[in-house]
């Protein structure tokens, strides 16, 4: 028996160790490297930074390295208004589109949850299906529609709503549209999950006690669906802040979102230390919502959701 126990715990250790080591090596360590490089100097070389740590030099090397750590990249982020504007723009767009997503996503989720039982699986698949198709393709589809002589402008001209075709691409409107379109299922599904689990007898009780429908919605349905709304909002807000593809293809090049700034810093300017510093600051901005998200996730799992 004891032999079996030992064997089992050895196997268990392996089950844990394999994914643990993989994630440590390819998820955790890379972030430490980002942190390290954000503290090193930019150099015209390949790779374009001076190494901070020289392992061969031993302890004295580490001490020397610590003295050369510099915060110059972070100082640059603070002094150049380009970066600050970029961060603010990202937070602004993320907050605005999360709000829009809540306003648009809730009625859809509500419609799904109130649909007759036998329709629900079908409706569910219909809502989920589009986001199995490529992100890039869905954004590209909007370029087809929004370009200057695209379908939207053709329609507006034909209906005589406008005389001059307005420019839709390279505007914030297009970015909001693209984000809302791409992230809609991330908002709808968590809200649907809470609404679907809701005990409908509560609404009947409210009706029996003479509460009008709209008031029952406001006093019963809305508060009960709050966990879903919080999860949906976090699931959208966090990735939107760092979004790259959507603003790059649909937005203007005047004020870039932080994901674009990082990309440009890395690929165009080849300034890896500054790009790393941008990433570290972005990560710090997102740590709070990520921690909240994890709490929500763990709590939901503990409840068996």
């Amino acid at each position, binding site marked *: 028996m004891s032999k079996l126990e030992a064997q089992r715990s050895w196997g268990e250790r392996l089950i844990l160790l394999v994914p643990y080591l993989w994630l440590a090596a390819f998820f955790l360590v890379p972030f430490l490297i980002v942190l390290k490089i954000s503290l090193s100097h930019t150099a015209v070389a390949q790779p374009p930074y001076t190494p901070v740590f020289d392992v061969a030099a031993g302890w004295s090397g580490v001490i020397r390295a610590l003295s050369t750590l510099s915060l110059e990249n972070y100082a640059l982020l603070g002094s150049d208004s380009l970066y600050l504007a970029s961060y603010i723009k990202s937070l602004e767009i993320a907050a605005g589109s999360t709000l829009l997503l809540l306003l648009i996503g809730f009625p859809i989720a509500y419609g799904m949850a109130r649909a007759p039982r036998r329709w629900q699986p079908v409706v569910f698949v219909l809502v989920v299906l589009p986001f199995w198709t490529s992100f890039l*393709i869905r954004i590209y589809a909007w370029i087809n529609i929004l370009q200057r002589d695209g379908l939207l402008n053709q329609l507006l001209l034909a209906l005589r709503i406008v005389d001059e075709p307005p420019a839709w691409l390279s505007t914030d409107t297009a970015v909001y549209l693209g984000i809302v379109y791409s992230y809609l299922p991330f908002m709808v599904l968590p809200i649907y999950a809470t609404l679907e689990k809701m005990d409908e007898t509560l609404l009947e009780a409210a009706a029996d006690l003479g509460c009008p429908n709209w008031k029952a919605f406001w006093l019963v349905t809305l508060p009960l669906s709050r966990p879903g709304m919080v999860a949906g909002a976090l699931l959208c807000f966090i990735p939107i802040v760092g979004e790259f593809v959507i603003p790059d293809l649909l937005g203007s090049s005047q004020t870039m979102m932080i994901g674009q700034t990082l990309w440009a810093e890395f690929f165009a300017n080849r300034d890896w230390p500054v790009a790393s510093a941008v990433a570290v600051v972005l990560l710090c901005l997102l740590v709070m919502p990520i921690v909240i998200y994890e709490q929500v996730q763990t709590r939901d799992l503990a409840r068996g959701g």
Partner: protein
Amino acid sequence: MRRASWFNIGSLALGLAFLYLPIVILVIYSFNASRLVTVWGGWSIRWYAELIDDRAMLESAWVTLRIAFLSASAATVLGTLAALALVRFGRFRGRVLFSGMIYAPLVMPEVITGLALLLLFVAIDIDRGFWTIAIAHTTLITCFVTVVVQSRLLTFDTTLEEAAMNLGCPPVKTFLTVTLPLIAPALVSGWMLAFTLSLDDLVVASFTTGPGATTLPIRIYSEVRLGVKPEINAVCTILIALVAIGIASASLLAKFHHGGRGAMAGLAGR
């Protein structure tokens, strides 16, 4: 009492129209005979015919499929192990760090993950290309498999395993003959989710790619930046068709096995 009010039907219909219209328009325009993407010149399959001669595009498609297959398979193994650890092991040392590493990639902006992985590959000085993208994708999508498998394991009836063990079945054999078949639908939908995520990814692949490994999204992206082209409409339509066929067969498979619930859980996993 369930009544579908006009408001509910209306919001649902509008929502679905919003989700599907752009894709439908894209598909229709891929059959447009005119080179001008905004002018309708009648039905034609000429852009599909031209794709067959586009060596570079086919090369990219092949690289992308191989990477997606490899990383989805690796992620399914890693993700399942991680899910088992999270659901079955209770408290263990380093659990907080472990679950943090599992859930963080779900919401982490891809530019950060991509940058971090690239800097790692540069630091350990390996040639970038096919394998670095495969490793990066495996890391990125493991968490999605974990979430899907985890939700299956949480509703799992452990008495079946206990019964097998009580009857003298060794743990490894119990896992292979009892646990694995029961969670198989979740593994299939997890694998499919991982596969499509890898097919999709532009940002992480752009950071970790090297010479000779241009994936389809990277190629499409570089063409799209120059404007809309009918050939790209055709490529996108083929990809949409592939995904649709994959989903349809998976949900049929799940219906066959578990009355559709497995596929539902899998689809919801993302």
